[in-house]
């Protein structure tokens, strides 16, 4: 089916892990007639919700991969990207967000705004994605949608406005009052599929009037027409919708919907809200870099007749080969036509083009600007830009954080080793934050990722999906080395052992460079080092940075200033100056007060207030720095900065000290100096290891 851009929405559903996102998605698919049965997340019927496509996710009750699915609601096509809820997988969230035009943020009416909500909100802000809120679980004991709305205002600083109020809460939750239509809405039928509109119950009249007035006040700011009409008491539904839509798209207003997905209440009005208030692809400006004109930013044209530009945002290896999810930003991608990958500089042909629905798919002939589809059998990486041949554009790269934790994996047999390499090939292609390499010294396979849980999930998948029998080493933190003082060097590399000699002299200094890995400044004058050997020096310094002398980790935050040097007509060469630079670096490094840096994580722990003492203690024992605490009623949140090296096994510890009632999120914050005592220990361990290896 072809639809105009005005009838298209690309949305994500983002949420805290237990706020019922998967159940909500399931209900949406059901009401949009994409599925004909409903399952629960941890399905008693053993089937599991349709969007969780992997066995492991089913077992853990969490969603890891962001499968895309397409539904139709009141004449509009909605592409839904299911986003994962745990912060260890935020690359998946971020990749999904990149291609969204709008989002639904699901909140639990009891838990409200939690640390994960704050993370997701920050990510949505980074990509400028407007969102509407759905306060879920109104049937739960302690449900308080007003409190949650206030939290959106106070904790997230959103101008949150109620578009609905509940009819009854907890066990008495019956439906909602639509403040735009000023009608009570009930959800009849076995699965809430029949929407019944009634007059507002008398006892809710005053509350509805009050909230409607608040809504009009807030929405009037975005429409003079509505303001005038409201003053005369003659506002129409269309006027309100248009004003709320403008406020939402400009990210100045956040409409709040509510209900209980589990009890089949409030989902259809939310779908109306998606169509009414979230932007269509033409209302969002997207940019690409023009690689032919020094990567100048140019605005893309959503016109389907323009030349095609698409972004590959997600890869999945399935039984039929690689499936590449793409978002089309300009023009149209048609079956049988050629495309050009501007990163790999390779041409490719669109063989099969499909529209995805969780695990099933439908073949399509073309995907127009704004649409999300999947390509079959195309070899590319996540983040690649695919264009009509002749264009040379790149969509801005998706921000990929560096991994902070690594682990050795040891397959038990040759067969397992084979399977392991297959699994690694697939996972690294799908997830840019998951990396692997062979350690040149130990010859072990090392995997790297964003946290303990991140690696755990992949190890589980290796075991289950690829039948790899393996053992794992202790997780290791990605330390760095750096310098704290400026130090000068004057180094001559000279070798005369028969044949051609080697000669190169370099002088200059190394300086601390906070916030950047490396900078090379050439101040050599008068050709004292011939121009062709300056890059050799740069190369030599870079080579030295790869492995520090303290504990063998990469060196970062160094500025090298090359000031002077000397060369020899015959004996100077590229290798000679590379060697001189390396020698010079180590000469200065020892004087520059080198230090060890470790990754510091931003930790956020949430739990009942009676456990704050235990939580404080657990953070303190881990060299953590408590930055702030928030107590709100019975819940407390503790924000802290903690070294990653101290956080292994924290989930088990936290569970046991809080009777399983607290949870935490963690993400990389910065690199910071390791305390002297620990630095000594690490250096001693490294020396010990070196000695052992030499003895071998």
């Amino acid at each position: 089916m072809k639809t105009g851009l005005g009838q298209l929405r690309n949305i994500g559903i983002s949420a805290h892990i237990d706020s019922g996102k998967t159940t909500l998605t399931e209900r949406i698919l059901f009401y949009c007639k994409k599925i004909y049965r409903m399952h629960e997340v941890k399905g008693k019927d053993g089937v599991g919700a349709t969007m969780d496509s992997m066995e492991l996710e089913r077992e853990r009750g969490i969603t890891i991969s962001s499968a895309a699915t397409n539904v139709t609601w009141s004449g509009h096509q909605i592409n839904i990207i299911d986003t994962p809820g745990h912060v260890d997988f935020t690359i998946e969230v971020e990749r999904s967000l990149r291609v969204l035009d709008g989002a639904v943020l699901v909140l639990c009416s009891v838990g409200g705004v939690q640390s994960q909500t704050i993370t997701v909100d920050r990510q949505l802000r980074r990509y400028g994605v407007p969102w509407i809120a759905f306060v879920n679980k109104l049937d739960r004991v302690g449900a308080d949608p007003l409190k949650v709305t206030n939290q959106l205002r106070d904790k997230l600083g959103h101008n949150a406005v109620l578009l609905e109020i509940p009819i009854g809460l907890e066990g008495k939750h019956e439906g909602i009052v639509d403040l735009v239509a000023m009608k009570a809405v009930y959800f009849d039928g076995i699965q809430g599929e029949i929407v019944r509109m009634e007059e507002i119950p008398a006892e809710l009249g005053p509350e509805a009037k009050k909230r409607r007035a608040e809504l009009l006040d807030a929405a009037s700011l975005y429409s003079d027409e509505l303001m005038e009409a409201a003053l005369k008491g003659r506002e129409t539904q269309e006027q309100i919708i248009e004003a709320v839509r403008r406020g939402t798209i400009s990210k100045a207003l956040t409409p709040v919907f509510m209900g209980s997905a589990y009890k089949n209440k409030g989902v259809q009005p939310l779908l109306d809200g998606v169509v009414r208030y979230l932007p269509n692809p033409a209302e969002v400006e997207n940019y690409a870099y023009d690689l032919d004109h020094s990567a100048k930013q140019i605005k893309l044209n959503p016109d389907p007749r323009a030349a095609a530009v698409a972004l590959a945002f997600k890869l999945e290896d399935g039984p039929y080969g690689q499936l590449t999810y793409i978002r089309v930003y300009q023009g149209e991608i048609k079956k049988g036509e050629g495309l050009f990958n501007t990163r790999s500089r390779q041409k490719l042909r669109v063989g099969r083009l499909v529209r995805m629905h969780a695990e099933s798919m439908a073949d399509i002939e073309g995907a127009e600007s704004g649409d999300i589809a999947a390509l079959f059998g195309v070899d590319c990486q996540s983040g690649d830009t695919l264009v009509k041949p002749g264009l040379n554009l790149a969509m801005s790269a998706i921000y990929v954080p560096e991994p902070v934790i690594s682990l050795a994996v040891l397959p038990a047999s040759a067969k397992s080793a084979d399977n392991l390499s297959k699994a690694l090939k697939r996972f690294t292609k799908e997830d840019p934050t998951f990396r692997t390499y062979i350690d040149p010294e130990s010859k072990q396979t090392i995997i790297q990722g964003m946290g303990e849980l991140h690696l755990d999930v992949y190890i589980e998948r290796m075991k289950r999906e690829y039948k790899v029998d393996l053992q794992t080493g202790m997780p290791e933190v990605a330390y760095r080395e750096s310098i704290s003082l400026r130090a000068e060097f004057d180094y001559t590399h000279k070798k005369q052992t028969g044949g051609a000699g080697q000669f190169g002299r370099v002088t200059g200094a190394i300086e601390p460079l906070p916030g950047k890995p490396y900078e090379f400044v050439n101040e050599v004058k008068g050709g004292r080092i011939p121009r062709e050997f300056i890059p050799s020096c740069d190369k030599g310094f870079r080579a030295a940075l790869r492995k520090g002398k303290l504990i063998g980790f990469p060196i970062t935050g160094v500025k090298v200033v090359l000031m002077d040097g000397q060369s020899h007509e015959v004996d100077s060469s590229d290798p000679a100056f590379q060697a001189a630079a390396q020698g010079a670096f180590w000469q200065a490094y020892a004087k520059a007060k080198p230090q060890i840096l470790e990754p510091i994580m931003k930790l956020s722990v949430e739990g009942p207030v009676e456990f704050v003492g235990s939580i404080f203690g657990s953070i303190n024992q881990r060299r953590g720095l408590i930055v702030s605490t928030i107590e709100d009623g019975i819940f407390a949140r503790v924000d802290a900065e903690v070294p990653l090296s101290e956080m292994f096994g924290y989930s088990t510890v936290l569970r046991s000290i809080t009777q399983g009632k607290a949870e935490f999120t963690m993400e990389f914050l910065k690199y910071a100096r390791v305390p002297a005592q620990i630095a000594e220990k690490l250096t001693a361990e490294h020396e010990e290891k070196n000695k052992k290896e030499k003895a071998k």
Partner: protein
Amino acid sequence: MLREELIKRSPLRILETSIHGGLGKGNVGVLASRKGVGKTACLVHISADKLFQQKPVIHVSYSSRVDHIINWYEDIFKEIAKSLNLESSADIHEEIIKNRVIMNFNQEGAKTEQVLRALSAMIQYGKFAAETIIVDGYNFIRSSPDDLKKFKDFAAKIGLEVWFSASLKGDDPLFDDQGLPHELKRYLDSIDVLITLHSVENLVQLRLVKDHDYPAPAELRLTLNPGTLLIAEP
């Protein structure tokens, strides 16, 4: 300028001299004025002064945005570092953050017992040896003298000092002829030092109206500079 010199030259030394050597362990100090005059700025400056001296501070607040409070500190730190050309300010900044914890409570929900319980958990289990507690946004209208006494007893038990801000909301005149705010009179037994803030011709004057048990409080020659939001000599 070096940190030592900065501490020595801080206008807060004038405050300390005027109140006979400082607020003191086990004591409660209150800064009172109408809303928007500059209480939070004064409290944060008092706190920053302690932090410069490497003395740990717990900042208790009843507004729900922690980032706002952090910004207060960042602004005041930048202002001090800039105006006095502080040496190695990045290291000092890092140290300051280490010595500061912000604890935020919901105004409606948090009872004094709960706040004190959280504070002692932070000191005991969080191993945070606070010497000063700053309490911003405490509701003196809704609380009782008994609540403030609990804070004072807590301060005495742990051996620390507590500075509060009090927002005065009553009708004029706010103060009696000795300069004491009418609204705070019922709390005077638990207040050791009381300073009121007054807007006078583009400046905010600090007046000392109660100084421990001394009968006649000294004249405080201090103002709050509305540009830098720092306490300064007039």
